[in-house]
């Protein structure tokens, strides 16, 4: 094969030219409506996407998939009387499985009898130590700790703002159901089966 000097580079530049043409072709097909809206973002996530690929964060944001995991939160159920009942029983499973050991749990104690109660009196997660592995949520026997989707936790002071206490960690069960529809559904099925088993006994 004869080797024409520069032909390899020209062949390569032809690829970039095709990419350039692609961007205009795709934009024309979308009539300029490909950016700043949900369908446009979804189009850029498809396996056969062409044209401009980048998503202009923070103006545009890719919706987090259900499995996405970020610093955990604690789920509370809103009872009919308006009371917030935290699901956590202070069993300590999450604290024991946590790889960087960033979960600190103080179990509540009944002041009258001095016996431990099945709820935490204090619960601290060091968000700057947390490695977002999700093992706590995976092994929680009460579906009480779940991984969040909120990744925008940048702050000015890590000493105060990234130490999440019980109040900062608590989020309603409706939030959990909204961000984890499938997982919540499976958990409800499992809890229903367990309750049935218990009532049969």
């Amino acid at each position, binding site marked *: 094969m004869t080797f024409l000097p520069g032909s390899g580079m020209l062949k390569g530049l032809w690829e970039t030219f095709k990419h350039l043409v692609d961007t205009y072709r795709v934009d024309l097909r979308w009539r300029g409506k490909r950016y700043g809206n949900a369908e446009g973002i979804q189009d850029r996530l498809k396996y*056969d996407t062409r044209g401009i690929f980048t998503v202009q964060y923070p103006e545009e944001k890719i919706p987090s998939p259900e499995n996405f995991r970020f610093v955990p939160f604690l789920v509370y159920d809103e009872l009919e009387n308006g009371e917030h009942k935290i699901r956590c029983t202070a069993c300590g499973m999450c604290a024991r*499985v946590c790889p960087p050991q960033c979960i600190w749990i103080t179990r509540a104690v009944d002041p009258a009898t001095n016996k431990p109660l099945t709820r935490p009196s204090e619960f601290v997660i060091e968000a700057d130590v947390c490695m977002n592995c999700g093992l706590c949520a995976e092994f929680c026997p009460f579906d009480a700790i779940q991984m969040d989707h909120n990744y925008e936790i940048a702050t000015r002071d890590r000493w105060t703002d990234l130490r999440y206490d019980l109040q900062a960690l608590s989020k309603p069960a409706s939030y959990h159901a909204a961000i984890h529809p499938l997982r919540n559904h499976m958990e409800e099925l499992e809890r229903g089966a367990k309750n049935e088993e218990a009532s049969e006994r």
Partner: protein
Amino acid sequence: MTEATAPLVVSELVQRFPGWVSAETRPGYRGELVDPVHITEIARAVKDDLGYDLLSSITAADYPAEGVQDVVYHFSKTTGGAPLEVKCRVARDNPLIPSIISIYPGVEFQEREAWDLLGIRFEGHPDLRRILTWEGFHGHPLRKDWHEPYYDEEFKPFKDRWPNASYKSAEDRAPLKDNLQFPPGFNPEGWIQQDDDAIYAALKREAGGEGQGIKTDQIIVNLGPQHPSTHGVFRMAALLEGEQIVNLKPVMGYLHRNHEKIGERNSWIMNIPYTDRLDYITSMSNNFGYVTAVEKLTGVQVPERAEYLRVMMAELTRIASHMINVGFLLNDLGAFYTPALYALKERELILDIFERVAGSRMMCNYFRFGGVAADLPPGELERIRGLVFERLPGTIDDLDRYLTQSEIIRTRCEGVGVLPPERALAQSVTGPLLRASGVPFDIRRADPYSIYDRLEFDVVVGRHGDVYDRYLIRMEEMRQSVRILQQVVDKIPAGPILAGKPAWTTKVPAGEAYARVESPKGELGFYIVSDGKPNPYRYHVRAPCFINLTSLAGMCRRHKIADVVVILGSVDITLGEVDR
């Protein structure tokens, strides 16, 4: 099959050296014990007579109760089969053993690492300095009696986290107090750093004086640690004659956090997310290696669907990793970012899959002992099918048309950084680097794990061992990975994804295991020792990036300093794994 070949060879060793070699008697342990005085003779016999041409790993384990340290060698055959394990027991208070660097030059960094972290002194090693910690470091951190700063307890989980925790940040608990250790007579105020002098002295000593021809002054130039071409915090001290490299020493450890010490504090399952952080480009492969090692000890049978999911993720990882390397090739040559961005685009689509399946783009934490953490979400298999059947074959071809015949790439890469196969083998180089030199050694074929023995793919081999061949190898390996993925996507069965119930504790029987997988960078091995407790007793990572760097100096010699950048790029290092 592989289990059967190993004892046969070992008995041959015992026959040949009856007084020097004895069988390992501890339950759960494998291999042979060798008298440390004779390790060089044994190593020579292992290499020349038994045909173990590649030294996989050398490390040590500390047994303070018995007052000994085990120096553990793993020898491999590039023609295939299980590695041969040999151990030497040395006294803990005077751990002295002859270096085998004259037989396997690839031990250079690994022996330095064992000296640095465990205090084993290798007699005859030409440059036995610390490698991951700094020269002024006191003690050998992987010894069992060494405690790190912010030391809590011997093992996780720590008792003060539950049920009566009172939160205190690590910085408040030990601000340079309890755990600060000085050597006797050390004055931190008057201390002047000596590291550089030692590096420069070693550089000049090994270069052996000035060359012939025109008289030029030799000068030392440091590339890095803060330099974009080093792909991280990595430093190369280069001795130059004009623009030519006379000698070069990699300096590493800037990202060192003693992964292995953390691993020995962790419980078994806690290590899985930590392995993500080794080579953060290829976290799925790292998971794979670690769980394979633990499963060797526990003997759990992985369900079929989980095996397919594992291979699927590992091969997607390989494509993502090779995409980065191929894409950034032109960056290393000085032409910025267009090919890199094309390659990153494909990687991005793969990371999207990881995010939907495992929950995180890079820190996947997807593998569990006996399976994987989660099944594919609804519709995901179809997206993967679309990616591997419709998109990736075409985009790899696009990249091929874009780069392969480019005159810039060919003139800058052909014949640059040549690594002859003999030297590659001697220096324990593995992965695409070794295959580019013409040695068809791929763990997936040589010592098959998971379901690779049932999949069709070719081991890609180069001929010249230069930067250009390494680029071609990676392109072709991506195609082979696509081929594997197409089979996996077609054949993946339904069924469970985990053997047994999800468990947060793992019962690992006492013993040791060495498991290796073909990570995108090379042979990724995990050597683990269990004493039956909930934590690994010894946890060692045979990091391919780290060991492949042994060959860097040889590849750079007599090249221009501008070529060092692309040669380093072709080694494909990730500093998270080099420094561990």
